[in-house]
C-alpha cells in the first residue's frame, strides 16, 4: 500500500461540535419553533408538553432536517416559513380566542393534514419529534446509561 492508514479524528463529543454545525443546528431549531410545530406535536402526544421532552423533539427534528441535501433543505425552509400562514388560514380567529386547547390544536392539525405540503411536513416532523422525544436522552436515561457503562 502506498498510502498509510488514515485514521479518523476522534469523534467530537456533543458539546464540541464544529461551530458552523452548531450554528446550523440552532438555525433549524429556530425555524422549527417559529413554524409553530411543537404545539401541534403536543396535541398528538401529551408527553411532548414536558419541556425537556419537547426540547429533545425539536433537537432531533432540527438535526435531521439540517443534515438533508441542500435542495430538500431549501424546500423545507420554505415550507416552515409558510406554515404559520397555513395555520392562520385554517384557524383565522385564533388570535381572538387566546391559548388553544387540545381539541382546537387537533382540529387545526386535522385541517392542515389536507393541505399539500403542510400535510407532509406535519407528518414527517411529528414522527421525528415523537421518536426524538420518547427514545432520546432524558435525565433518567443518561443516568442509566452511565451506570450501564460504569
Amino acid at each position, binding site marked *: *500500500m502506498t498510502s498509510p492508514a488514515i485514521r479518523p479524528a476522534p469523534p467530537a463529543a456533543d458539546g464540541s461540535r464544529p461551530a458552523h454545525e452548531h450554528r446550523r443546528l440552532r438555525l433549524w431549531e429556530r425555524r422549527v419553533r417559529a413554524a409553530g410545530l411543537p404545539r401541534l406535536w403536543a396535541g398528538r402526544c401529551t408527553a411532548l408538553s414536558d419541556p425537556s421532552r419537547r426540547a429533545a423533539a425539536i433537537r*432531533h427534528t432540527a*438535526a435531521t432536517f439540517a443534515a438533508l441535501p441542500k435542495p430538500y433543505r431549501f424546500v423545507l425552509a420554505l415550507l416552515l416559513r409558510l406554515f404559520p400562514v397555513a395555520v392562520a388560514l385554517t384557524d383565522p380567529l385564533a388570535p381572538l380566542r387566546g391559548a388553544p386547547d387540545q381539541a382546537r390544536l387537533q382540529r387545526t392539525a386535522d385541517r392542515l393534514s389536507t393541505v399539500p405540503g403542510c400535510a407532509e411536513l406535519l407528518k414527517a416532523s411529528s414522527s421525528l419529534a415523537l*421518536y426524538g422525544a420518547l*427514545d432520546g436522552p432524558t435525565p433518567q436515561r443518561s443516568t442509566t446509561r452511565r451506570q450501564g457503562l460504569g
Partner: protein
Amino acid sequence: MTSTARTVRCDALVIGSGAGGSTAALELAGAGREVLVLEEGPLISQARIAQASPPENLRLLYRQGGLVPIHGAPTIPFGEARCVGGTTVVNGGLLWRPPDRLLEHWASTGVDGFRAHHLAPHLTEVERRLGVIDQSPGRGNGDSVLLTQAADRLGWHWAPARRAVRGCRHANRCVTGCPTGAKQSMLVSYLPAAEQLAAVVQPDTRVVRLEHDGTRVTAVHALRGGRRLRYLPRTVFLAAGPIGSALLLRRSAIGGRGPGRAIAFHVNFRTVARFSEPVRATEGTIFTAQLQEFADRGVRVMPANLTPGSLAAALAAHPAGTVDRMLAQLDRIAVYTTQVSVRTTARLSAVPGLGAVLRHRLTGGDRDLLRSAFRHTAELLLEAGSVELLPPAPTSLTTAAQATDFALHGRPETWDLISVHAMASCRMGPPAIGGVCDAQGRPHGFTNLRLCDASVLPGATGISPQETIMGFCRLMTARHLEDPTRY
C-alpha cells in the same frame, strides 16, 4: 479533477464497507492482496454506538437520518446506513440462505454459476465467521412466541430467526446500532479481521467518479474533508450499495442508462397489535420467529423492535389520543412488520446537488398483494389474541370483519410503507434482458471493475438479502483470486 488532487497508487481498491465491500476486502486481504477500502461515512466506534441514544444513532449512522425518499404514491422512505460497516451496522442481523428455487430461477434467466451447490461452501463460511444461530427468545419476545403459537394453531409454517449474533443481550436496539456489540455487523467482524490482514479502511472518503477508457478504470476520484484524492488502482471492487453503486456508474458514464433503471425492492408495513395480556416486546431482541407460510407469494411477517419512540412515530398520523392510549399500555403492545416483495421496480436519476433521486410506481398487482398481505397479517394477529389492530393507515380495527374490510378496501397508495431492502440496480445478466454486469460483476466490456454488493444480484431475493450478497461476493472474489485472467 485537476492535477492538484493528491494521487495514491494502490492494488485492490474497495469502494464501500458494507456487506459486500467488507466481504471482498477480507477475502482479498486473506489472499495477500493489498487492500484499501474507501468509505463515505464516518467510523462510529462500538463504544460510541453504545453511549449514544437511538435518535442520535439514527442521525449518525443512517444516510439522511433514514429519510431517503422513494418518490411515488405513497412516498416510501428507504433506510440505508452511511458509516463504516455500512447497513450491517443498523440491520436486524438476520441471515437467511437464498432458497434453492430462487437460485434456479436466476440460473434460468441466464445467470449461471450461482446455484445452491456453487454457493453452499461460501454461505457456510459466512455463517461460521458470523456465528449464525437460531435466535432464542429473551425475557421479552412474547410477540415472537405469540406469532409461533398462532401460526401452529392455523397450521401455518414459521421458522426460527437465523441471526448473526454472539451472546445477544436483548438490548432491543438492533436497528439503531447494537449497543453491546453482540450483533456481528461488518464493523465488529469482517472489517477488523481484514485490518489484521493489513487491509486499510479510510472513512469519510466519498468516491465521486470513476475515470475509464471504456474497458478499464484508470483512476478513482474521491473527496475527503474537502480535499480531492485520485487513486490509481489495479482492480476496483465497487460495493457502494444498491443505490450508491448505480449512482457512481451513472455519474461515470458506465453501463449507459442501465444502472439504476430497475431497482428491485421489498416494502414493509407495520401493524400495531394490542393484546389483553402483557407481551413485554420492549425486552427482547428484534424477533425470534418469522411467518413463512406465504413466502412463495413474497410475503413474510415478523415482529419489530418496540420502543416508545418507534411506536409513537409509527402512529404519528393516527387520530388524536391514539399515541397516548397505546403508550399507556406499552407492555401489551407489539409491532409486526410485514415484508412484501413487490413486482414493480424503482428508477434512479442522478441529480446534481441531490445525488440519487428514486421513483417507484406500485402496480395494481402490488396493491392487491399488499392488501392480501395485510389480510394474512390480521388473521395471524387476531388468532394470536390481539384485541385491537392499528394498520398502516389511520384507523383502528377490533374485529375480524373490520380487518377483512380494511384488507379488501384499503388503499395501499396511502399507507405508511417503508423499504430497507433494495437490490439488483446493476444486475448481472445478459444485456438483452437488462443485465448491466457479467457473472463476475464486471460491467459488460470492463476488465478491472467488479461490482460486489446488493446492486449486482440478478433480482429481488424475497428474503433479507445480506447472506445472499455475502455469498455471491465471496464466490465471485474466490473465482477472481483463483484465475485473475479469466475471472
